[in-house]
């Protein structure tokens, strides 16, 4: 059964908030279709002084999605991803002349593959009352992750829909060359999440959604491939064994006439490592003649540093310390453009994103250097087939 257009929207509006790797209920509400995407991700050379292999990270990704009804009330969604990654990785930071940080990159080029699959099953009880269960498995040579999730969408009245759910993931890491570099042999990490959202139809052309999420991670949360300069020695990256995070997200959609729509998204988060972040996104969907669609978008992100982050540490520091650039204070501005063209059952898409990061973008500035923040360019293309 193909949902009516209004039902599709209601399903989308109510399902709303799901994870970045778990099939969304609004995917499952759009009828039978198959999609393929090819992405190329390429990092810029570091702007800060660095030592080691200068070839930065490149990722070639392929994604495949099949979305199909099962009976009158159920939808099955299968999503597969394969990535090939190569390039040098930030390793540790040493103090240079005048204590300016010098980033040391891994000497040997890392080459790895990641394969992931998600299967999601959605049952619709009628209207936009749906329940989705999903499972994901992801595998790299040194990293395995398995996750289970469930979510419910419950209409409260004709305008208001409640969504809620939870998930659990278990990750296992077995680092390369553990003996050679004195890395941990193997370790585990668990993540538990709970989330809830309310979506509200404001009027005939606009809808808003607000949601909260809580995550709690336990286990080995350090990066076994990173080290830290502590005085005159190099020590393993060492982080606390638990991390709690709360996030608040608001999304707004507004139609302008018959051919355009505005998307505004915001996200605020805080975690128990002392980091706060703000994300703002805006996109404009413009339909053009002949089945073409142009979608420009911008994104801004800012985060504060974790309380145990510094480029390098004085002797006697600890017990937790990390020089991982992802834990420092920085911000990023990004712009993207996507072009789509529908021809019969087929739909072609292509686009690009430019992402530029730096400590200067951080709200309130950064009180310590972060020499390995990443700027990158992505290009992507895809093809969808709609069966109905």
């Amino acid at each position: 059964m193909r949902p009516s257009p209004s039902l599709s929207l209601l399903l989308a509006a109510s399902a709303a908030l799901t994870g970045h790797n778990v099939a969304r209920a609004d995917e499952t509400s759009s009828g039978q279709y198959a999609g393929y995407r090819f992405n190329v991700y390429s990092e810029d050379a570091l702007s800060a002084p660095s030592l080691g292999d200068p070839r930065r990270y490149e990722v070639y990704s392929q994604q495949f999605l099949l979305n199909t009804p099962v009976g009158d009330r159920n939808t099955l969604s299968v999503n597969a991803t394969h990535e090939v990654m190569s390039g040098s990785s930030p390793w540790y930071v040493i103090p240079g002349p005048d204590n300016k940080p010098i980033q040391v990159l891994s000497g040997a080029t890392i080459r790895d593959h990641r394969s992931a699959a998600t299967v999601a099953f959605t049952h619709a009880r009628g209207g936009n009352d749906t329940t989705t269960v999903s499972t994901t498995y992801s595998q790299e040579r040194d990293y395995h992750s398995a996750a289970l999730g469930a979510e419910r969408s419950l209409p409260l009245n004709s305008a208001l829909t409640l969504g809620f759910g939870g998930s659990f993931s278990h990750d296992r890491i077995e680092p390369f060359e553990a003996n050679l570099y004195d890395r941990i042999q193997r370790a585990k990490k668990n993540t538990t999440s709970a989330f809830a959202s309310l979506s509200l139809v404001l009027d005939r052309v606009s809808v808003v959604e607000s949601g909260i999420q809580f995550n709690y991670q336990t286990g080995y949360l350090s990066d076994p491939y990173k080290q830290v300069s502590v005085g005159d020695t190099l020590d393993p990256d060492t982080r606390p064994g638990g991390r709690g995070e709360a996030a608040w997200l608001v999304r707004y959609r507004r139609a302008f006439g018959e051919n355009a729509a505005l998307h505004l998204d915001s996200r605020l988060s805080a975690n128990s490592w002392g980091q706060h972040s703000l994300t703002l996104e805006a996109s404009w969907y413009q339909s053009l003649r002949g089945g073409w669609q142009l979608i420009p978008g911008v994104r801004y992100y800012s985060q504060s540093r974790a309380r145990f982050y510094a480029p390098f540490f004085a002797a006697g520091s600890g017990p937790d310390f990390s020089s991982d650039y992802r834990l420092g204070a920085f911000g990023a501005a990004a712009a993207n453009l996507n072009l789509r063209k529908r021809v019969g059952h087929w739909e072609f898409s292509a686009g690009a994103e430019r992402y530029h990061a730096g400590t200067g973008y951080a709200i309130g500035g950064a009180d310590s250097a972060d020499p390995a923040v990443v700027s990158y360019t992505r290009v992507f293309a895809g093809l969808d087939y709609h069966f109905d």
Partner: protein
Amino acid sequence: MRSNAKLRRSSRRIEHALRWVLALAALACLGGCATQTVQPWQRGRLARWDMRWDPDPLQAAMNQHAYFSKEGTSGEIGAAGGGCGCN
């Protein structure tokens, strides 16, 4: 003495949190008052593909994976899992 000071600090934190909750509730009420009743036959524009939360789920997943692997606190609201692919 020390426990009284702790208690006062805790009370202040709870009051502060309650103020935020009340402010958000007031905002939500204002939002509710601002809505119009929209009948099912008036939802044509709301039902369009470009009005979905994520019109292209494959692209949205890849975007989130790129941000998640390079930023310390990013990620959409939703279920966790899916591996790293980080460096």
